[in-house]
C-alpha cells in the first residue's frame, strides 16, 4: 500500500538520510525511531507530501502521492494540535471535519469528546483548557477517523497513563480494520493488534 523508495533528505546543508526505503501493507504499523535531529519529522513530512524528497519516490496504492486522491486517504496529526483557541472543542472537531471534507455528525463529535474525557467541556472555548486537554481535543479526531493511512507525530507526548492506553486501543482498532499507521515516538507503547515494524534513523 505505502511504499518509499530510495528517499534522500537534505535540510539546510546537512544530509539527514539517503537511500531509505520501506513497504507498509494493510494492518501494519511503522514506528520511526532515532535521535533528535535524525530526520524523523522530516520523513513524516515527506510521507504526507508536504516536503518533496531530494531524491526517491513515495507511492500510495502504486501511485505517486502527489495526486489529490492520496490526501483523501490520509489523516495526519502533527506535534501541533491544529485547534483554534477561540473555538470550543465541539466547534473545532466539526470545523476540522468540514475543512478536511469528512462527514462528521454533531452526535458523533460529542461522543468522540466524551471518549477522550472531555464530557461537559464541549462548549468551553479551548483557550480555557489545559495543555493535556487540548491535546485530547486533537486526538478526538481519531475516534471517528476511517481514512486508511494515519501519520502521527509523537502522539503519546503529554498524555497520562490512562490516555496512553486509550490511544493504543484506538490505533489497534484502526489496524484491525485494515488501516495503516506511521508514527514517531520516544516511548515504545505496546500496540495489541497488527504487525509492528520499526525503522531506525541514524
Amino acid at each position, binding site marked *: 500500500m505505502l511504499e518509499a523508495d530510495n528517499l534522500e533528505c537534505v535540510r539546510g546543508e546537512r544530509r539527514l538520510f539517503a537511500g531509505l526505503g520501506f513497504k507498509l501493507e494493510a494492518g501494519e504499523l511503522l514506528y520511526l525511531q532515532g535521535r533528535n535531529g535524525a530526520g524523523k519529522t522530516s520523513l513524516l513530512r515527506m510521507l504526507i507530501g508536504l516536503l518533496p524528497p531530494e531524491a526517491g519516490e513515495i507511492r500510495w496504492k502504486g501511485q505517486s502521492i502527489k495526486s489529490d486522491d492520496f*490526501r483523501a486517504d*490520509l489523516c495526519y496529526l502533527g506535534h501541533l494540535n491544529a485547534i483554534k483557541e477561540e473555538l470550543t472543542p465541539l466547534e473545532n472537531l466539526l470545523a476540522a471535519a468540514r475543512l478536511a471534507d469528512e462527514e462528521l455528525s454533531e452526535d458523533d463529535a460529542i461522543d468522540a469528546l466524551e471518549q477522550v474525557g472531555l464530557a461537559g467541556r464541549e462548549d468551553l472555548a479551548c483557550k480555557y483548557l489545559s495543555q493535556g486537554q487540548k491535546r485530547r481535543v486533537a486526538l478526538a479526531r481519531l475516534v471517528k477517523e476511517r481514512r486508511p493511512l494515519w501519520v502521527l507525530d509523537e502522539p503519546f507526548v503529554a498524555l497520562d497513563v490512562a490516555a496512553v492506553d486509550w490511544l493504543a486501543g484506538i490505533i489497534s482498532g484502526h489496524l484491525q480494520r485494515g488501516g495503516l499507521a506511521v508514527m514517531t515516538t520516544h516511548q515504545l507503547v505496546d500496540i495489541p493488534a497488527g504487525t509492528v515494524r520499526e525503522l531506525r534513523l541514524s
Partner: protein
Amino acid sequence: MFKIISAVIGRDLKLAMRRQADIVSAVFFFIIVVSLFPLGIGPEPDLLRKLAPGVLWVAALLATMLSLPRLFADDHRDGTLEQLALAPHPLGLVVTGKVIAHWLVSGLPLALIAPVLGLQFDLSTDALVVLTGAILLGTPALSGIGAIGAALTLGLRGGGVLLSLLVLPLYIPVLIFGAGAVDATVSGLGGEGHLSLLAALTFASLGFAPWASAAALKIALE
C-alpha cells in the same frame, strides 16, 4: 468547490467575531490616519476636497496592510495550515475562502465608514457614492494581492515590514484607479471607466492571487 470555500469563510468569520477587537482597531486606524491629514495640511475646504480621494485610498491601503500578517500566521502557528494543505481539495480554493473572509472583515468595514470620513473632506454626494463604490470594488483586490505577500513572508522575522515592501508596489494600480474614479467624478468626467478597470483588477486578482498564494504557502510549509 463552493462547499469548501463557504466552510473556510464560515470558520474564519466565526474566529473574527470572537476577536472583534482586531477588526475595530483596523477601522480606527483608518479613521485616525484620515483625520490626521487635515491637521497636517490645513482646513481649506478646496484643498481638502482635492486631496480626499488620495488620502482615503492611501489610508485604506495601510489599514489593509495592518491585518494582512495574521491572514495565515495564526493558522500556521497552531498547525491548522498544515491540515488545510493536506485536505483533499486544492489549496487555492481554501485560500480563496480566506481571502473573501479577510475582505469581509477588513475591506467591507472600510467601505462602510469611508463616506462618513468623506464628509469631513467636504465631498459632494456623487463623489461619496463613487468613493464607497470604488472602495467596495477595489478592496477585494487588496486582500487578494496581499495574500500573496502574506504567504511569501509567512514565519519570517520582520515579516510585517517586509510584507509592506513586497505588497505596496503591487497595490499601485488599485490606488490609481480607485482614487482616480473619485477624482474623475469630482471634476465632472465621470468615474465609470475607472470603476470598470478597478472591477477588472479585482476579478483578475481574485482569480490569480489565491493560486499564487497557495504555491507560496506550500513553499513555506516545506
